[in-house]
């Protein structure tokens, strides 16, 4: 009763109703925006004065990086609220986000590597930014692994949540790695003070990023519905087994 607002959405049935209503719109809008953003990025936006055409990898690489970081923060907040408020859906939210975040971190690493080969002259270096981003990918994999490590599901969620929370320390390290330490990776182009990306390239990037974000949200909602359904099926099977046994 202390936090009625949060718990209003804790009811899995009510959550499911909302998720069912929102998912198709998120999917539709996300696909539309992403399609428009990628079309603009690949065909309308100009090539770069130095990088040439390879600059176009940015329209996938940068949104993936943002979502990998933002998704991790969301996952850690869910893990924290699972520990503090015992929100019944929070642990499922952690489990729902982890593989999607890992996917985007993986896309970020692979596209970055493909861009790095012609631009820098190497697929990979162990500088601060690349290393901390690889660590983020491994943290996601660790969270996924630990959830399934324990026979006791609640215990697995608790340990995975702990890793998710501790891992947030990596987020500012990723963000500021290019400022704190000499690195091969360039510093941020988009800052509060303005953008070092020309407007003709910036708007397709923002469209693509928004599209990826909505798709990310839709995928998380779909995965949460799957996990809730799995949980209910498991509970039903247990009840049935108890009755028969």
């Amino acid at each position, binding site marked *: *009763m*202390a936090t009625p607002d949060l718990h209003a959405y804790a009811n899995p049935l009510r959550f499911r109703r909302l998720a069912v209503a929102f998912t198709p719109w998120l999917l539709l809008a996300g696909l539309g925006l992403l399609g428009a953003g990628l079309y603009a990025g690949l065909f309308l936006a*100009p*090539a*770069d*004065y*130095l*990088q040439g055409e390879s*600059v176009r990898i*940015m329209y996938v690489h940068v949104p993936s990086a943002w979502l990998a970081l933002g998704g991790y923060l969301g996952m850690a907040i869910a893990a*924290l609220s699972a*520990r*503090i*408020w015992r929100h019944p859906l929070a642990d499922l939210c952690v489990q729902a986000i982890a593989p999607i975040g890992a996917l985007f971190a993986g896309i970020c690493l692979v596209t970055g590597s493909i861009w790095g080969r*012609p*631009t*820098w*002259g*190497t697929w990979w*270096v*162990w*500088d*601060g930014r690349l290393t901390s981003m690889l660590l983020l990918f491994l943290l996601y994999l660790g969270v996924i692994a630990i959830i399934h490590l324990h026979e006791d599901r609640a215990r697995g969620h608790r340990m995975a949540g702990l890793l998710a*929370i*501790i891992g*947030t*320390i990596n987020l*500012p*390290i990723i963000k500021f790695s*290019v*400022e*704190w*330490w*000499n*690195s*091969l990776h*360039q*510093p*941020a*182009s988009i800052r509060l003070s303005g953008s*070092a*990306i*020309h407007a*003709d*390239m910036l708007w397709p990037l923002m469209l693509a990023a928004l599209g990826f974000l909505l798709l990310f949200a839709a995928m998380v909602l779909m995965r949460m519905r799957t996990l809730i359904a799995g949980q209910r099926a498991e509970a039903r099977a247990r009840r049935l087994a108890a009755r028969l046994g």
Partner: protein
Amino acid sequence: MAARPTAKRQRLILALAAAGVLAIAGVVATIALQDSAAYFKAPGDIAASPPVIGQTIRLGGLVKDGSVQHAPDGLTIRFVVMDNRAELPVRYKGITPDLFREGQGVIATGAMTAAGDFEAQQLLAKHDENYMPPEVARAMEKGGHPLKSAPNTGA
């Protein structure tokens, strides 16, 4: 019913305390890593504390304008890497990355020679944070805004 909010508050306080400890640990680790986590040394760093001759290090900075010289063998190049504090002549034998050019950032892996120049085994081009179409870049150059930003040499 009264016990629940207290337990909740206790968990919240514990979580906040843990977050505080974690943040302090992060700051300490970051400060400790300051030197070892740097991917390269700038010419100024090398001038300030010269490395052992023959020891493999990475040198990063801007390729000085007008300094690139191609040797007759067609493979060896000489150029000067600089930052706002010092300059260092570099020799490299091999294929240069596409983005290698005067005024751009570069990271060379190699070692100092007894002669006082840097012998590079590997050469990587550094890209800066500026993204723009070629026409804009030309217009900016013409307008007297050179497109060379200072290399990212950290704090």
